[in-house]
């Protein structure tokens, strides 16, 4: 494959000599203290912000929702005393009616709930397990890779191919390493596949960075193997079933305190995997907001400017092939088409399915590139190699000043929210800017739009329902348009609005062939095929739509 030739991966030394120094290790050594701090902060916040109802109402709603969850949607990973805990709360609340010191008792109950949540969320990082897990992953991946690339069972013991050949790291890797030494890094990647967390974990290791903490869906902890690895790699647990304000506040406080304590963090700011295949164009602000709050808090506690600075680093992950694509796009379309009921099917609900997925990926996967973006401060200003924020005119900005009113650091939550919103817009812009266009994305985009133009009278849904047999493009026509669109991409690249994979340059026939062979290459129904007679066809228009969406947001549609 062409992109193989783009250069050998560099080997990076760890930036910190011993794991003892790792922020995440320090956190887990002080786990108990950390949980106390989180509980206290979350408690203060919840008491302060009364969303128009009393504490009692808040507790009752939470109780109701939790009992409903236990009844309707129990998981293997739920603690055994789940029912008895909430039942006890219920009785206590009943007994409180009419009691004199009700409000102090209610506060005590709130504290207990918060503390339970904090314990549940907090990760359990153990460095011995981290090392073991890392070695197992490395060993396993390497064996699988060799078995499939070189062929035959015997090859499982060869060392010819490594993950480094398969995964290319592009962009500001060196700067990221520097920033992780200077301050606290918050990495925000795009999210297309369940593979992303593992992949990013691997990248962090390859770059010689200490482990990052990241929120992983509690559902993944149902799977024993995965739970083991994730706990070892610094994951904390996020339970999407729990949507009550007490839980959400505790979760946010966990993230805020961990960042404030210097733990490098990773969030997928899109929230979940991109269903449509589009690069995220709006982000979830909750967790990003915790970074903002952490930064303000650091500035407050360090009036002499010696607090750690927080750096935001956007990352995009570029695939030719996303295993989940057919399901994701089906999900997306049925949601958009406002079908009333749909069942989200979890492709990874058991250990077996997960392993099967990994085997499939490593036996079949095609190349992946990871682009690391320019480091920024929390207001989205680029930072230089020394971590200084730089404005568009090249002058140094003191990030602290963003949080100052009347000469001192001031708490202004509305302002923080607005800053977070601004930051999210800049992250989206950076995603599009560092995204690397593959030939496979571009052929999908070209073919889809050529067909869409042909049936311009149909809306998207009617169009997608067309029988695939009706859709044929002559190679010559396709080639002509492809070259035009590629020119547009090169122009965008020149204007610094996108990145381009090396294999996209050169002889258009070769590039098109690379694209068509790679796009969604291991789906049972191929999104694009080139017949011997020189006709371009598709076997699955939905999946083609998915891969085409990768080029959404560059205003290229107007070329058709």
């Amino acid at each position: 494959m062409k992109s193989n030739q783009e250069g050998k991966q560099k080997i990076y030394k760890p930036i910190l000599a011993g794991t003892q120094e790792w922020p995440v290790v320090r956190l887990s050594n002080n786990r108990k203290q950390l949980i106390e701090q989180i509980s206290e902060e979350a408690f203060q916040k919840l008491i302060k912000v009364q969303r128009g109802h009393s504490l009692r109402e808040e507790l009752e709603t939470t109780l109701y929702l939790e009992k409903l969850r236990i009844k309707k949607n129990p998981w293997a990973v739920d603690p055994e005393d789940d029912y008895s805990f909430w039942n006890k709360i219920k009785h206590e609340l009943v007994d409180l009616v009419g009691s004199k010191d009700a409000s102090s008792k209610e506060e005590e109950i709130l504290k207990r709930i918060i503390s339970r949540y904090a314990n549940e969320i907090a990760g359990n990082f153990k460095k011995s397990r981290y090392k073991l897990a890392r070695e197992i992953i490395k060993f396993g991946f390497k064996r699988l890779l060799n078995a499939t690339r070189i062929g035959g069972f015997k090859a499982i013991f060869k060392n010819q191919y490594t993950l480094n050949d398969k995964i290319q790291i592009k962009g500001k890797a060196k700067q990221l390493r520097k920033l992780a030494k200077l301050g606290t890094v918050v990495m925000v990647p795009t999210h297309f596949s369940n593979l992303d967390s593992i992949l990013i974990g691997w990248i962090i290791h390859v770059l010689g960075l200490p482990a990052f903490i990241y929120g992983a869906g509690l559902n993944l902890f149902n799977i024993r193997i995965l739970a083991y690895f994730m706990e070892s790699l610094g994951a904390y647990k996020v339970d999407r079933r729990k949507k009550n304000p007490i839980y959400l506040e505790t979760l946010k406080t966990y993230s805020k305190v961990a960042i404030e304590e210097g733990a490098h963090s990773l969030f997928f700011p899109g929230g979940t995997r991109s269903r449509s295949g589009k690069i995220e164009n709006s982000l979830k602000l909750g967790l990003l907001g915790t970074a903002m709050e952490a930064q303000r808090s650091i500035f407050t506690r360090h009036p002499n400017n010696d607090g750690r600075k927080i750096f935001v680093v956007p990352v995009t992950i570029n695939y030719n092939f996303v295993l989940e694509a057919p399901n994701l796009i089906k999900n997306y379309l049925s949601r958009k088409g406002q079908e009333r009921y749909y069942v989200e099917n979890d492709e990874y609900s058991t250990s077996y399915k997960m392993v099967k997925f990994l085997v499939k990926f490593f036996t079949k996967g095609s190349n992946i590139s990871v682009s690391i973006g320019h480091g920024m401060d929390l207001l989205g200003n680029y930072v230089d190699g020394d971590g200084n924020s730089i404005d568009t005119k090249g002058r140094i900005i003191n990030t602290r000043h963003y949080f100052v009113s009347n000469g001192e650091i001031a708490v202004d939550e509305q302002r923080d929210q607005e800053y977070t919103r601004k930051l999210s817009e800049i992250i989206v812009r950076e995603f599009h800017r560092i995204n690397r266009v593959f030939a496979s994305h571009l052929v999908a985009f070209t073919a889809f739009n050529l067909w869409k133009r042909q049936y311009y009278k149909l809306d998207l849904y009617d169009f997608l329902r067309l029988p695939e047999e009706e859709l044929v493009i002559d190679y010559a026509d396709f080639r002509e348009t492809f070259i035009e669109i590629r020119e547009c991409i090169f122009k965008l690249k020149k204007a610094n609005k996108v990145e381009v994979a090396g294999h996209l340059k050169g002889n258009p026939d070769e590039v098109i062939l690379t694209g068509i062979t790679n796009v969604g290459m291991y789906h049972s129904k191929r999104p694009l095929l080139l017949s011997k007679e020189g006709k371009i066809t598709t076997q699955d228009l939905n999946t083609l739509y998915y891969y085409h969406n990768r080029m959404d947001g560059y205003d290229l549609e107007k070329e058709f």
Partner: protein
Amino acid sequence: MISKKNSNRPVGVIGAGSFGTAIANILAEKTEVLLFSRDPGMVKSIAETRVHRDKSIHKNITPTGDISYLANLCDVIFPIVPSSAFRSVLQQLSPYLYPYHILIHGTKGLDILLPGNKGLNTITSIDRENVMTMSEVIMDESVVVRIGCLAGPNIAKEMSANQPAATVVASHYDEVITQGINLLRNDYFQVYGNKDLIGIELAGVLKNIIAIASGALSGLGLGENAKGLLISRGMVEMIHLGKAMGGNVPAFLGVAGIGDLVTTSNSTMSRNFTVGYRLAKGDSLNTILETMEEVAEGVNTVQIAKLYANSHKVTVPITEVLYRILFEDLKVEEGLQMLMKFPYNVDIDFL
């Protein structure tokens, strides 16, 4: 209601035009004010005579010609200079600005930034990234993020006479709105807050087009039916254009939209109205502009708005006709005929 000011630092006003001076006088009732002018002679004369543009200057106002001094001393600054000079003033100011500064501007015009320094006359289409409101110029030229704007029926002359008036302070930040209200609010000046910064800026900018048209109707000696027609259709046009440029409809329905539109369209004192009025009386645009003391933003706005509407397929018959009157020597009477023949058929189509 007199609220306490938030700090003891003075507030800065940049630009000593009639509106800038009126705002400085209002601010001075609550706080020390530094008033910047580029013209050293003006600074000197204000300091000595305490009178400027026939208005007395409040004792709390100190004129200055030193922009860095002003920026260092003031956390809150009101830049009130014509849009054509706005960017260069910001460039001058920018090195002394920090992210804690609050800038609330009062300029109702647009800035054009074309690649390769091309002129407006040489291009046939324009994108949003080339047209900037003043808040966007501030963001483009400085590190300031806490930005707001003033817009509303505030004719400087009436404000100086302490007649009732109102303004909107628009900003994404509560902090900026609160500061604006605390600093400006008094018994005859009502201040409202709004979060749609771009919408409010555009309302203030686009109403100037209709103000010119209104002046032209007056100049022709037409009556109130014609004016009512113009204002309501002008409103629709403003909203369509405003939406296309990123504002939201509600911004155009409040004090800064309808409020300002009705005021300016009826005010013989307004500069834009005067331009239209004199055009109808047969003066040429050049003669009018040469003899005007202060800038009529509307003229420039018509040109940009017309180009933008054409590039983005927005129907703007009033703007189109005004453009031809201003720049293509169409007679005002003919323009009016064209508008009366235009096939409008839906009254309200923006809700």
